[in-house]
């Protein structure tokens, strides 16, 4: 369900002199007198062109805009690689407790023990889940974690007097952030092909490995929706060549509590907390991309990390006593003494350094912590089990009704790929057409054209929180689309029909750049924008 009408720009609602005045701070008489003089040359001459609105204008505008979106709370959203599952509302409720929200990031540790305890325990739980020896929570998204990881790989080689290793191998199907990260870290990304069943081509891997190899970035299950079966062989080869293995944690949902990157031989990884551990994606974030490392990379972890004074550092985490589990031992303000504190340069002199202004996206970390406490050990494993069950079931059903799986001989992991290659050739209907038509039928589209390796592909990730009925309804819609593709392909090619806009012209968008509102828009051509 989605609203059909369109909504003017906020600037079009604006009227000179209108204002939400209750939001303006009240000045005291003292205020008028007190501020220091600012040199006139430093002052703003014209006010910014912000809209002038009543509070109702603003609320109504953004409420109406919201209704133009698909979302998890309203739609099935099987966007492959993005793990768009239901995020329990309790995670938000806990992260939004007033004291957490009011806490300044540089608050003294005496006034931060409650918060730091959560963060510390999250570090410990992530270690247990990933099989890593150390975890740093500060990276602010998956790609940020990747950066930290590759930077640590480089720091490691450099620390061993091996600074020329600057090649990062990535499988053909890797997410774009993997090669982009390699470049950002000053490395060279080198692509490795996969074989017909989606596994890494080992001979190509062997050929690529060498004295310049810094490491390899893999996600397993891969973005092809299959588990890399020879992962141990891959690890052996890369390690033998002197490289390290980076695990892209975007697909962790598939293996939670089933198999651990650390046990597969990975040296470093990130976790997309916002995917696997329940932060609503917010239309583009926030996320959090904690990094985990094996023993040899511990000294290089980014700053800051929460440390604990006293007691064995890794003996707890989520596995507390029953009474702490019930939240009771904390309840009475026990422990005003400082147990937890941020570790910094002085504690970790070899750290790659700081990646963010403060200690990480605390709100996301708290959500992940709450989610993990809600799930517990068994719940964690169920996530992987039912995500996998749903993907395999949906894949089987869609193949039954006439779609082609990219890897029909493989078990799907938490996601799988359909290819519309045949339909594109025979009927002139593309994966994009199917995607747009799905929107009309009330489903968010799967990921399209990723991985690029598979032509006309749809990457479908149903997640564990969707019911069989929803999957069956999706199959019904896909069946109808296939029928339309045969009977009336143009109907698909011109979809969607029922959304607030018809299909949008991306080429026009890039040619006639219109990136900001101006009341009277001068003619701009794409030339002006070319740098």
């Amino acid at each position, binding site marked *: 369900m989605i609203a059909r009408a369109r909504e003017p720009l906020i600037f079009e609602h604006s009227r000179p002199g209108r204002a939400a005045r209750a939001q303006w701070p009240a000045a005291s008489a003292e205020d008028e007198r007190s501020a220091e003089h600012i040199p006139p040359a430093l002052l703003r001459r014209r006010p910014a062109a912000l809209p002038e609105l009543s509070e109702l204008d603003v609320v109504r505008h953004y409420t109406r805009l919201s209704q133009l979106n698909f979302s998890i709370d309203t739609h099935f959203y099987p966007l492959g690689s993005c793990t768009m599952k239901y995020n329990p509302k309790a995670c938000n409720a806990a992260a939004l407790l007033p004291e957490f929200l009011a806490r300044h990031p540089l608050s003294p540790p005496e006034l931060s023990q409650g918060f730091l305890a959560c963060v510390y325990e999250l570090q410990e739980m992530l270690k247990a889940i990933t099989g890593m020896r150390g975890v740093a929570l500060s990276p602010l998204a998956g790609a940020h974690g990747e950066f930290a990881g590759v930077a640590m790989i480089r720091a490691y080689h450099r620390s061993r007097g091996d600074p020329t290793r600057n090649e990062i191998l990535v499988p053909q199907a890797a997410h774009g952030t993997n090669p982009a990260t390699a470049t950002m870290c000053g490395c060279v990304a080198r692509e490795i092909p996969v074989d017909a069943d989606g596994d890494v081509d080992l001979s190509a891997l062997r050929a690529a490995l060498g004295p310049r190899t810094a490491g390899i970035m893999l996600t397993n299950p891969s973005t092809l929706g299959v*588990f890399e079966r020879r992962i141990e062989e891959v690890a052996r080869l890369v390690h033998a060549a002197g490289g390290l293995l980076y695990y892209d944690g975007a697909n962790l949902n598939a293996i939670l509590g089933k198999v651990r990157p650390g046990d597969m031989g990975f040296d470093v990884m990130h976790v997309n907390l916002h995917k696997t551990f329940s932060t609503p994606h917010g239309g583009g974030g926030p996320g959090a991309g904690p990094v985990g490392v094996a023993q040899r990379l511990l000294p290089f972890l980014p700053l800051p990390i929460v440390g604990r004074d006293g007691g064995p550092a890794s003996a707890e985490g989520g596995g507390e006593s029953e009474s702490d589990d019930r939240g009771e031992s904390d309840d009475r303000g026990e422990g005003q003494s400082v147990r937890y504190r941020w570790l910094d340069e002085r504690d970790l002199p070899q750290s790659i350094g700081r990646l963010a202004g403060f200690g990480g996206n605390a709100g996301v970390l708290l959500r992940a912590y709450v989610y993990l406490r809600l799930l517990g050990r068994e719940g964690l494993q169920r996530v992987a089990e039912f995500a996998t069950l749903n993907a395999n079931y949906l894949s089987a059903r869609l193949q039954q009704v006439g779609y082609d799986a990219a890897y029909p001989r493989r078990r799907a992991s938490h996601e799988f790929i359909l290819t519309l290659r045949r339909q594109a050739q025979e009927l002139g209907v593309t994966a994009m057409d199917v995607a747009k038509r799905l929107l009309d039928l009330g489903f968010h589209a799967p990921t399209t054209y990723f991985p690029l390796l598979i032509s006309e592909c749809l990457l479908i990730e149903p997640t564990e929180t969707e019911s069989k009925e929803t999957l069956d309804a999706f199959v019904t819609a896909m069946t109808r689309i296939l029928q339309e593709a045969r009977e009336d392909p143009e109907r698909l090619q011109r979809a969607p029909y029922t959304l607030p806009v018809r299909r949008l012209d991306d080429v026009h968008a890039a040619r006639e750049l219109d990136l900001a509102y101006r009341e009277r828009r001068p003619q701009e051509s794409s030339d002006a924008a070319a740098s």
Partner: protein
Amino acid sequence: MPFIPHTADDVRDMLATLGAPDIEALFEEIPPHLRVQELDAIGRGLSEFEVMQLMRARARADGTPLCFLGAGAYEHHIPAAVWSTITRGEFYSAYTPYQAEASQGTLQTIYEFQSMMASLTGMEVSNASLYDGASALAEACLMAVRANRRARGTHIRIARSVHPHYRQVALTTAAGQGLTFEELPFDRASGRTLLPDGAGGTRDAGSAHGAGDISAVVIQQPNFFGVLEDVDAVTDWAHASGALLVAVVNPISLGVLKPPGEWGAAGADIVVGEGQPLGCPLSSGGPYFGFMTTRLQHVRQMPGRIVGRTVDLEGRPGFTLTLQAREQHIRRARATSNICTNQGLLMMAGTVYLALMGAQGLERVAQISRARTAQLVRALTAIPGVRRAFSAPLFHEAALMLDRPVAAVLRALAARGIVGGLDLSTLYPQLGAALLICATETKTSQDIRRYAAALDEVLRAPPAAGDAP
């Protein structure tokens, strides 16, 4: 099963469709010896009630102290309408707007955000957010090197009065690509950045880099000490050196201060900053959002998502992600950045905040914050042993000198429920016993009196042994 809807019947039917005996069979491709043996560190699952009890207790343990700490994160009033609006499920639980037709709400909001930020900073284009202010500066440095075709090198001059964490993040981030950084010192008396002698083009004393080598100059306004820099002079010097000028700004300050687009003769080239003051709670350090604006000519070097207005099949306007050829999912290894997920929801908070405040509201927030800081400085410097560290005009932060080490003073204040500021000696040892304080419009005169009384009490006690600054 919490958060899993499958009934026993569902599981049976689904497995039958798959011809699999049980769910475990679906994991058969994983080498059995790799399977997880134990997960003892993870406890049993709690009920929602138990979790909320635990979290409420943890939150209560930290309380809500009276906070005079800024240093890059600022407590401003957040209109109730901001979060009640953006936490609507359709915004909150949507992904990045890849399917434009099903994401017009998010896309139009981003377009509005871009428009507001461009105007606020005096630039032409904005992206849809970066991780935070610090990482935005790092991206700006990388971008400047790409965009500055005139400069020969990959060298950045950065004012020492830029937030120390930002400088560290820039270093961590840009080191891999071989960027080098050199600091511009600040004047110990005024707190303002000192330009090299002979600023204007010749190789300056003590630097290994000549004018033509410098890709960018980075200056923060107001600087880390709250001091207002002479941004016009810095901008002109940067441009004369063939460098791009990267401005780090507090968006609230732009309600009053000259936008970077108007700095000096030609204006800044890239503007970045921390968006948190615009409607985002302090939230223990995040999520916040970084913003970046620039001139149209540099847009193709900009990292991050950008939304454009376009037309649909029927010629009606709509919004879509554009210039994606800069991004990792298209350009892969040659992308402008690896950034993918950014800080969408917080960017929305900023948008709704700016829409509610308007230019005039923003100006008031800025002015009253300045006034409260001035009152705070007056109240605290009236206490014996406390004086201002710098003479130049301030925005809403100030560095003070104490007569003893700051750390112990802050601990004593914390015991009184006051977060008294930042111990500058950890970041700028050369400053000695310096304390960075901040007041915004959320600090009333009574709050200020309470702080002054507490500090007075703390400083009346004789310094502990070895406590001389």
